[in-house]
């Protein structure tokens, strides 16, 4: 006979769940609306999602206020962990999602947005990502990871092109493999320490002085592979370009930002204590991953003929660049990671939105892919404003000051310098120079070649609606005037990262 368990509601601290529950409720509401009255226009769902995301955002602002005064919060049987990392990551996740969802309001009609399920899945996915970052329980991380990934596979497949199905299936297969790796890794650490909570694992491992080093390394290897898939680190990157190509440009931009920040937070929680306990093997492997990821993907990006694929490789390279923060592992580096990713999300979402705006419904005969370089030739002559904005995003991605991403690069390279990773700092700087070439290639096409498509520049704005233009405007303003926001951002981020003990 089981004795009844008495749990006081106070100790559960259910408010920690509020930010995750809001999108879940929103998703359910959208489904209910669809059941009651079907066939409603997508604009309703876009606005509803936006409202719920805004509420979500306010809830996170609220919990950040609590964090500022009370420090880290635990909740729901200590499974939820609301620390500075969780709050920062949720800001990025929800903020980027708010910038993404209006992109559904295209001028042309695309298949996926006519389904309310798209928006419901989208909100479920966000809840999944939020769970993933707001815990240090390996099981809840796994649940969050799988919720979000399953939703994401479907969202990609809903784009309804031959290549999107291929992409979704590919992503699904790879993702399943990664999930397997993740559970193996969790299993090994559970077997070693009897806990699935990262802080307890760290404590137990430190207490016995890493006696079973062999097993720890095997577990770390599994985790590296699992997170490597999520973060598209080389050699686990092979899915990324194909999937970016298969999904819509807006979705590709979204995938380059939100899933990765969730992955980075998990990686930070997992690897940071290992790096700090001087596991040399992990340091070396991470070092190699970082250097190879940013260098090799830069090389591949050089030879692409399609802008979207180029941007796919470039975002792999950016991920490798940022991964160096986890290798360095100081407060400055971890703050730089968040700073970088906030600035990156503006710029990258902006540039993918520009592609999305120029997306044709059907591929014309003279084009081999949706966004070939040739399509952008001579854009300055036919659509000067669009060309200027696209050029701006490219310069920012290349790290030309004073645009947004320069400051992220500056701070991240500085953190490498400060921690004595001189060679790494040089490699990072030189990689930025290599990357300059392929961003420049698009600028060359846009500004220095003669137009090929003779429709007076209509193609570049064929999808434009007020919603899209607003998003691109926000991204452009964020990119240009980033230098004004760096100081408050930096102080805010540093305070949060420092107070969570990273």
């Amino acid at each position: 006979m089981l004795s009844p368990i008495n749990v006081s509601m106070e100790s559960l601290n259910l408010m920690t769940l509020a930010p995750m529950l809001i999108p879940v409720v929103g998703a359910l509401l959208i489904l209910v609306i669809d059941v009651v009255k079907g066939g409603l226009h997508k604009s309703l769902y876009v606005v509803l999602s936006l409202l719920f995301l805004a509420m979500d955002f306010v809830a996170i602002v609220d919990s950040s206020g609590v964090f500022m005064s009370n420090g880290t919060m635990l909740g729901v049987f200590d499974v939820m962990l609301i620390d500075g990392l969780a709050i920062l990551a949720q800001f990025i996740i929800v903020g980027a999602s708010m910038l993404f969802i209006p992109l559904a309001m295209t001028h042309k009609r695309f298949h996926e947005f006519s389904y309310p399920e798209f928006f419901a899945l989208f909100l479920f996915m966000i809840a999944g990502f939020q769970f993933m970052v707001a815990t240090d329980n390996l099981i809840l991380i796994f649940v969050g990871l799988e919720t979000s990934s399953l939703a994401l596979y479907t969202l990609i497949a809903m784009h309804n092109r031959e290549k999107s199905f291929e992409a979704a299936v590919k992503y699904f297969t790879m993702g399943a493999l990664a999930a397997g790796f993740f559970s193996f890794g969790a299993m090994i650490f559970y077997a070693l320490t009897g806990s699935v909570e990262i802080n307890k694992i760290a404590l137990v491992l430190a207490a016995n002085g890493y006696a079973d080093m062999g097993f720890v390394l095997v577990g770390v290897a599994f985790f590296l592979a699992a997170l490597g898939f999520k973060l598209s680190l080389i050699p686990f990157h092979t899915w990324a370009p194909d999937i970016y190509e298969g999904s819509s440009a807006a979705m590709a931009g979204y995938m380059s930002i939100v899933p990765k920040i969730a992955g980075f937070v998990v990686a930070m929680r997992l690897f940071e204590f290992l790096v700090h306990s001087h596991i040399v093997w992990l340091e070396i492997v991470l070092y190699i991953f970082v250097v190879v990821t940013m260098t090799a993907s830069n090389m591949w990006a050089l030879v692409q003929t399609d802008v979207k694929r180029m941007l796919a490789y470039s975002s792999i390279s950016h991920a490798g660049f940022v991964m160096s923060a986890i290798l360095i592992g100081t407060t400055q580096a971890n703050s730089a990671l968040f700073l970088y990713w906030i600035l990156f999300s503006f710029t990258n979402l902006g540039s993918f939105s520009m592609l999305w705006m120029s997306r044709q419904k059907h591929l014309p005969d003279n084009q081999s892919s949706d966004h070939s370089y040739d399509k952008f030739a001579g854009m300055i002559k036919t659509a000067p404003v669009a060309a200027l904005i696209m050029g701006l995003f490219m310069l920012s991605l290349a790290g030309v000051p004073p645009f947004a991403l320069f400051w992220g690069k500056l701070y991240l390279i500085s953190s490498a310098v400060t921690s004595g990773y001189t060679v790494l700092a040089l490699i990072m700087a030189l990689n930025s120079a290599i990357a300059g070439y392929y961003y420049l290639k698009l600028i060359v096409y846009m500004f220095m070649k003669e137009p090929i498509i003779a429709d007076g520049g209509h193609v570049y704005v064929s999808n434009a609606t007020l919603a899209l233009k607003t998003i691109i405007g926000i991204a452009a303003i964020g990119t240009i005037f980033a230098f004004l926001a760096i100081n408050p951002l930096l102080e805010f981020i540093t305070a949060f990262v420092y107070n969570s003990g990273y």
Partner: protein
Amino acid sequence: MLDHILSILIFFPAVAAVFGFMIQKDSMRAYGVAVAAIEFALSLWLWYAFDNSVSGMQFMEHLPLVPSFGINYTLGVDGISLFIIILSAFFTLLGIGSLTDTPNVKYMIITLLFLQMTMAGVFAALDAIVFYVFWELSLVPMLYIIGAWGGPLRIYASIKFFLYTFTGSLVMLVGMLFMAYFYYQATGTWSFALLDWYRLILPETIQLWLFVAFFLGFAIKVPMFPFHTWLPYAHGQAPTIGSVILAAILLKMGTYAFIRFSLPLFPDASAFFMIPIAVIAIIMVIYTAMVAYAQKDIKQVIAYSSISHMGIIILGTFALNVEGISGSIFLMLGHGVVAGALFLLVGVIYDRRHTKMMSEFGGLAHVMPRYATIFGIMMMASVGMPLTINFVGEFLSLLGFYQQSHILTLLAGVGIIVGAIYMLAAYKKVFFGEVTNEKNENLPDINKKELFGLIPLVIVAIWLGVYPKPVLGPINKSVESIVQLMHNKSTSELAKARIPNLIKKRVLVIKKTVVEEEVR
């Protein structure tokens, strides 16, 4: 208003450029000239308000940008940067004024105004990051000018220009971050302010590494041998206005940065690397002079002669004494005026014949006498004839380095003689003899618009050659304080020996007399 004159100088052209998008195409040229004229007037006002008796920074502005990371928007000018800022405004005005028929002239003028912003910014910045921002930003308009209005190989040339400089400056950025970190270690606060860095004395080994990092960024910009290969392409493909600004101002950023950053920050390393850099400079002078002699394209002759002159500027800079550094700054101005004028002159002939090959010409002195005269004056100035602007700078630079090494200075002098040979030979081929090519028989002489660009340059080239004092005075004043700073900061024996002390000499002499009196 004088408190913020530097900010106005920097951002006025940029704001004007943004508004320029609204101007109708045909009125754009007038707008550009008007804006550039105001900018030039502002820069002259800066000179008027400039206090010649002060050696340090004037018109300082300070605005925190990222205070938690020590980045501040700090501006200021001294005698070194003042005249380069004026020169850049001057060339923007002349360049826009003498702009010949260009497709998309509206975009060209907007780009030039943005370029003027970055140029003023680089020379006025006193914070390493602000400096870096303008330094990098200056690449973008130039990339566009070369890539959109250039010759057949323009895309290759523009990308090569951009990537070369971009790579070098990223290495320099890492150097800057190290510098800020050392400052943080020493004082506990982050700072990228140059005047703060001046106070920091670094161990010699660290100085050597940082010097190399900064050197890469600057040397590519100058460009120094063996990083010079982008320059002939850039000049060869750029439109006239692009070459003019590139030669007159953009290249000076590198040599200016040597004086602003490398010398005062790393005096020991500067003294340590003096001889190797002087050897590179002499290779630049002699080798590129020889290459220039072999060119068939007159624009390439001037492009290589630019590199050759930059060699002498570097030599003067690394003389590490007042004569050398003052001379090299003066030569920067002189070379800016002369090379700018020569590129404008080549543009004149290119507009008429659409070729720059010397073999196509000959006997032009008969057809275009006024053109030949101006070209002759500028050519003489370029080879450093006394009473022209380049003579003063070259002489002082060599005089400065003569105190460090006789042999190397003599070698550099040989380079100047070779310079005279190739310039005179080029002049002979184009202007003297009979008109052999019948296409040249009816070329119109230089017109009003072109004279607008050239006459002021001729006046400046001769005026400052005859009477350089109004410019040389303030330069000298600021250079003295930099040399003294370097001497005070230097720790190694070598540096103490190579960098002269400007104050103590006098004190020592007095002491001696006192001692002698006591003995008596």
